[in-house]
């Protein structure tokens, strides 16, 4: 279902409807579930790609969690879990994003779309990231010990979409998946009043 209430979205789009635009909070986990739910893969030469997205979350710029999907307790909250917990993830991700964003403001093309750029960094050995040729970026890809983390800025970084996948999922595919959802979120959430 739509992420914003339809009347509110219509009002915000300037159709003359008098209504407030609000986030349908119960819908958010389902929207994020598009990343985490298993989907039938088409028949490809070489077999279906392996790996899956274990958890997806949407947070505010400052790391306040708005909603999430996946992050199965058995895999993330158990004492012997190898993956970082969602809380830790959101705190660290928002900090890292702020660092990179401070140095690299996203560039906009002629249609005010954020241009694609990729920065990959290794989180575990403090190696300095190899920055993309373009000075701008909008997807952060982090290779962790047991998985890959992708972060995309939504609405110019007012919100952050974050997806954590097991190590079998190729980073490129993760980036495509998160990019698709990011476009949808950009379109939906831009109608919310900017109060931050």
């Amino acid at each position, binding site marked *: 279902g739509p992420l914003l209430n339809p009347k509110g979205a219509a009002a915000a789009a300037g159709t003359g409807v008098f209504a407030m*635009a609000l*986030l349908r909070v119960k819908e958010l986990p389902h929207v994020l579930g598009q990343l985490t739910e298993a989907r039938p893969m088409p028949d490809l030469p070489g077999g279906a790609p392996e790996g899956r997205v274990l958890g997806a979350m949407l947070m505010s710029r400052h790391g306040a*969690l708005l909603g999430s999907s996946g992050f199965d307790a058995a895999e993330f909250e158990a004492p012997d879990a190898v993956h970082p917990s969602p809380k830790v993830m959101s705190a660290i991700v928002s900090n890292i994003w702020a660092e990179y964003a401070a140095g690299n403001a996203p560039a906009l093309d002629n249609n005010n779309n954020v241009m694609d750029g990729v920065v990959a960094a290794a989180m575990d050995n403090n190696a300095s990231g190899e920055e993309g040729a373009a000075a701008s970026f909008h997807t952060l890809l982090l290779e962790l010990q047991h998985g890959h983390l992708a972060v995309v800025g939504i609405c110019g970084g007012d919100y952050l979409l974050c997806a954590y996948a097991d190590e079998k999922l190729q980073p490129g595919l993760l980036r495509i998946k998160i990019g698709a959802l990011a476009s949808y979120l950009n379109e939906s959430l831009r109608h919310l009043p900017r*109060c931050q």
Partner: protein
Amino acid sequence: APLLPVCLRRPESSERRKLLEDEARLCGSVDYPRSAATSAESPPRHRPSTSPCGRRHRLQSTMKKKVLLMGKSGSGKTSMRSIIFADYLARDTTRLSPTIDVEYSSVQFLGNLHLHLWDCGGQDDFYKNYLDNMRDHIFRSVELLVYVFDIEHFEAVDLKQFEAVAEALDQHSPDALVFVLLHKMDLVAEEERSLVFRERESLINECTRNLAVRVKCFPSSIWDETLYRAWSQIVYSLVPNTKLLEDNLNDFCKICGSDEVVLFESTTFLVIAHCEDGSKHSDVHRFEKISNIIKQFKLSCRKAQASFEGMVVQNSRFTAFFNLFTSNTCIMVIVSDTDIQPASIQLNIDAAKPHFESLIPQTQM
């Protein structure tokens, strides 16, 4: 103890004066001439004050609505005032003369609504004075009159005084509402309360039978929730488009997946609008309890030189959000669904503010 009323006895004039002088600094004041208003003098005129608030009041003077609070001296008006309006609202007072014990003060709430408190002495002279000399000045453009009766002093003469006031009101503001509070009901034995109330109510309705103004009676006592309930009704009646507010609040409630959303007036914390999603809450007195608690908390914040913006209270069963909402209201949102993240509710509260801000001024016309 926070739930006990501040005034348990009639305050001394010096105490009263100090109490009110402390708050006179807060906002613009209505100036009255200090000399005795004898029949030779003209009625007090409203002089806009020079403070910033006063200038704002002058600009909005055409939108000001008057709420009169009257009643025999000792009926409990000051006590009521400190409970409902707490101690920190803009007021101004002056004495008419040393011989006539009258106090005027003005309390602002719900934006541009001014509650004019006329605390009058028991002398007949005084009543004669303002019913004759200041009649149209006082009774003109009145939105609402709250008249307080002490249930133990309900003689024919008291009823006559009320009748005179009601007639003056009827003459100058026939569209006004009259709320009659039969106060200090706690002094009546519990089993007799209903009967006593109905008897008095019929006497009051009898003497206002031929008037255009609409009269409604309430029992009240500072010792239970009846005072809060009566004042909630009063404030509720001052917000004409409550249906519009409640419809929007309902939308908000559903979209947030919340259990209950309440809109409080931000000064008195009286309920303006309220909606529940699903099962009814068992405690019908929760609003006055919350009102008391938040008001005390606000007061403590003030003493600590901090201004109350909002808070989130979380326990195992629910999360409660309190936020200053529009310029005159505070919103409370209760969410028990553990899958809903607090930040998303906060986001929606912020997103809804401009919409409600545009709704509420309309309801004050």
